[in-house]
């Protein structure tokens, strides 16, 4: 990256297109945070590529001034994998939703993560299909009534973070749409991470699932119900920062400092870089009312990155190659020469005439 400060601002990342999400949609705030993050990254503007699938959130690239590709349902991760593998020099962002990436695109989602391709994936989770007007999605809670589950769903939902860990993910973070400052922080971490970064943003669909995350997201409950994780810092929360996480019998537990002999030193320190996913999984699984919801970067571990490994392999193999170009390739291996007295001069293929023209 260059040492020159490119001095971008949010405006440099807005496109001329009119933004057409519903008034009050959580997407506005997320886009705002993405644009601010990109402006701060000091990466040349033309190196950004934003790839999306289908869904409300996937309109995102049109509202950005960067290179963008609004693709087809579920395939953003696969297309972005191609973009990044083809040119690792780019900063590639994937915009997707719970239906797009966890239903129709589930296969691409897990395999992208498994390969650890250096993509920044923002997963807008509103637990509903918004663009098609309110059908249940793979993150809709059991029993929830929607247009396609008038008597309540009879299936369990995915927990995105569990999928990420199950697919051997190296980066997972969680954030709430309206908290632009925190989003920005998390997006910056995602961008910095080498490998597939998945950020689940709890996003509010104001029309078809309004308030679905309100219990968690409402700022007035934030201190009690959200635990903002920071690597190397104790995992504390509460109005007076009086609560924290401890381990009891191998499981996480909320403790209050000063009660039952718990001191500040007993509170667990968050280690996002721990390779063993055991504790990260417990953090991902924390749910109300027994726990606050874990926010911020839950996991960020180092591992080989696919697009870098691919470049490296090409460089290594090329360095010791025995053929240098196609001409040499064609003449490598078992070949033989024809040069008889009766042989004719070769005719280029596209100029050959039919052999039975008499």
């Amino acid at each position: 990256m260059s040492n020159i400060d490119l001095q971008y601002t949010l405006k440099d990342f807005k496109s001329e297109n009119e933004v057409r999400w519903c008034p009050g949609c959580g997407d506005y705030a997320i886009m705002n945070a993405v644009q601010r993050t990109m402006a701060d990254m000091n990466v040349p503007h033309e190196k950004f590529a934003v790839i999306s699938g289908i869904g409300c959130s996937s309109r995102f690239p049109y509202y950005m001034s960067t290179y963008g590709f609004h693709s087809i349902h579920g395939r953003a991760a696969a297309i972005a994998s191609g973009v990044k593998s083809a040119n690792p020099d780019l900063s590639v962002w994937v915009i997707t939703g719970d239906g797009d990436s966890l239903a129709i695109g589930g296969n691409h989602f897990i395999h992208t993560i498994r390969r650890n391709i250096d993509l920044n994936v923002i997963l807008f989770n509103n637990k509903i299909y918004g663009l098609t007007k309110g059908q249940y999605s793979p993150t809709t809670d059991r029993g929830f009534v929607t247009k396609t589950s008038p008597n309540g769903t009879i299936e369990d939902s995915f927990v995105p973070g569990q999928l990420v860990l199950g697919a051997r993910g190296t980066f997972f973070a969680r954030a709430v749409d309206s908290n632009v400052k925190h989003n920005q922080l998390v997006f910056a971490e995602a961008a910095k991470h080498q490998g597939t970064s998945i950020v689940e943003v709890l996003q509010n669909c104001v029309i078809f699932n309004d308030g679905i995350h309100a219990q968690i997201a409402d700022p007035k409950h934030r201190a009690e119900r959200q635990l903002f994780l920071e690597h190397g810092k104790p995992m504390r929360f509460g109005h007076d920062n009086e609560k924290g996480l401890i381990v009891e019998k191998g499981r996480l537990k909320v403790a209050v400092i000063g009660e039952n002999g718990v001191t500040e030193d007993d509170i667990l320190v968050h280690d996002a870089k721990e390779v063993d996913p055991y504790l990260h999984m417990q953090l991902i699984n924390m749910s109300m009312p027994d726990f606050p919801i874990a926010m911020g970067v839950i996991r960020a571990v180092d591992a080989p990155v696919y697009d870098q490994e691919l470049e490296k392999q090409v460089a290594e193999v090329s360095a010791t190659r025995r053929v240098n170009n196609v001409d040499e390739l064609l003449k490598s291996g078992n070949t033989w020469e024809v040069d008889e007295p009766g042989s004719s001069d070769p005719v280029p293929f596209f100029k050959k005439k039919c052999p039975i023209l008499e």
Partner: protein
Amino acid sequence: MKDTKVIELEEVAIRFSGDSGDGMQLTGTLFSDATALFGNDISTFPDYPSEIRAPQGTVGGVSGFQVQFGHKEVNTPGDEAHVLIAMNPAAVKANARFMKPGGTIIYDVDSFTQKNLDKANFATDDPFGELKLDDYIKIAVPITSLTRESLKDFGMDNKSVLRSKNMFALGLICWMFGRPMDYIESFIKTKFAKKPTVVESNLKVLHDGFNYGMNMQHMTPQYLVHAAEIERGTYRNINGNIATAWGMLAAAEKSGLDLFLGSYPITPATDVLVALAARRDLGVKTFQAEDEIAGMCTTLGAAFAGKLAVTSTSGPGLALKSEAIGLAVMAELPVVIVNVQRGGPSTGLPTKTEQSDLLQALYGRNGESPVVVLAASTPSDCFYYAYLSCKIALERMVPVILLTDGFLGNGSEPWRVPSMSELPEITPRIAKNSSEFKPYKRDEDILAREWAFPGMEGFQHRIGGLEKNVEGAVSHDPENHHKNTEIREAKVQKVADMIPELEVCGDEEGELLVVAWGGTYGHMISAVREMRQDGKKVSLAHFNFIKPLPANTEEVFSKFKKIIVCELNLGQFASYLRDKLPEYEYHQVNKLKGLPFTVTELKENFEKLLEE
């Protein structure tokens, strides 16, 4: 067009070879008898070791049996074998010089131990390299361990188990060449009537060998031979899948772009992926995707990122890729999709050839979704049509589907390798002037848009699956959609100006025009040649360009009294021609047996039509 003659499918020489104790003579005899009873003419050649008691595992101790069989009269066991079954390293060494260049070697990988390599006097641990067999198709089969596994419940001693290895090899070969095994079974039952365990164990191993072939989808090797190698130059043996891979590699070098292949393994197209995965040395990036859809999508992503992006698949894979190909049509990105056709529908006949994906290639997408469709016609010309597919995609900003098939992909033939300087230039439509750039601004003549990709400063834009206006903004304007739909079709038709005219093989007018396309070329030209030698007024128009059709197609058709369209499907090209050039009557020859045409059946059909 070039001169070539096919060896009919069953005109193949097979050499069984192993240690004197491996039962190769019996294996060869049983296979030959089964083949003769199947209705093929055969000629055999047993090749015993010169030393009666040569040491086991040595070259001197190798025993061989060669059989050649074919539809027509076969007078010799074949000078060189197309297929070698080698039970140990010594057998490979003893027979290497009897092999046809580029032939297939099936060998018992379990026997390739250091001890056996030493016995056969190999100097290195790379016996195939040492014998210069690099370009041969080598199929490693753990015959010994699979035989052992097959018989584990029989309580037999090791020596008896090893003696049954030949039955495994025999079963495998029977599968590869579609031989029924009932004769072999009854032979075993009669011969060992008094030893029920021997009957049972032999039958078990025989069937396990047959099923192994089926499970591994080991394909029947197919060969083309040329009438004569008259042009001077450097020759090599090549099969269609490698030729396809190398044609794309040549296009990448010529266009100055990196090559990216996103693909998913599928019979019979996998070897395109394999051949390019081996070319990291030339900068190729292959991406083995999680499924066919991702194979197409990563390819599309690479095209968006400015690479020569290609994918390889076969029929069922093309079906899965269709939605993403539609996106390539809409986004107007240069991609090449190679479909190595196989028997369908559904899983169909994965290892057998067919031409039944033509209409899928032309129309198998939602909406009006035109792409350029090409078809290669011999194993080696896959190189040129793959090259041309890339050139068209890059210069016209359009997806191109290249149709080959199992017969071409796995078939091989000697090929005069061209030099890069013989190949036409490729000029990708990379945008140059950012102040004038608009995503969907087109060249007025060829209707292609310009290509700008991430990393190019000042060209930032958005594309996608939604209908757009010239500026690249989403547009639901009815007039705009109608116009763009027509433009996308017209852009494909404009490709006709960069492809060669349809050539007539034979007189340009006459009684009968034989029309065919793609991989049937070798059989078509053989049939037409033979009929012309008999004085019949027959000519051949063989198509490599399906969409658009060559500009002179109608002119060619108009000079003949009758037209007959031959294809390995129920008449897909014939229906397409009826749609495009409805003023002609199209007779048809169709075949759906998973096999190529035979010259004889083609001639019979043509003669019948001439007599009508």
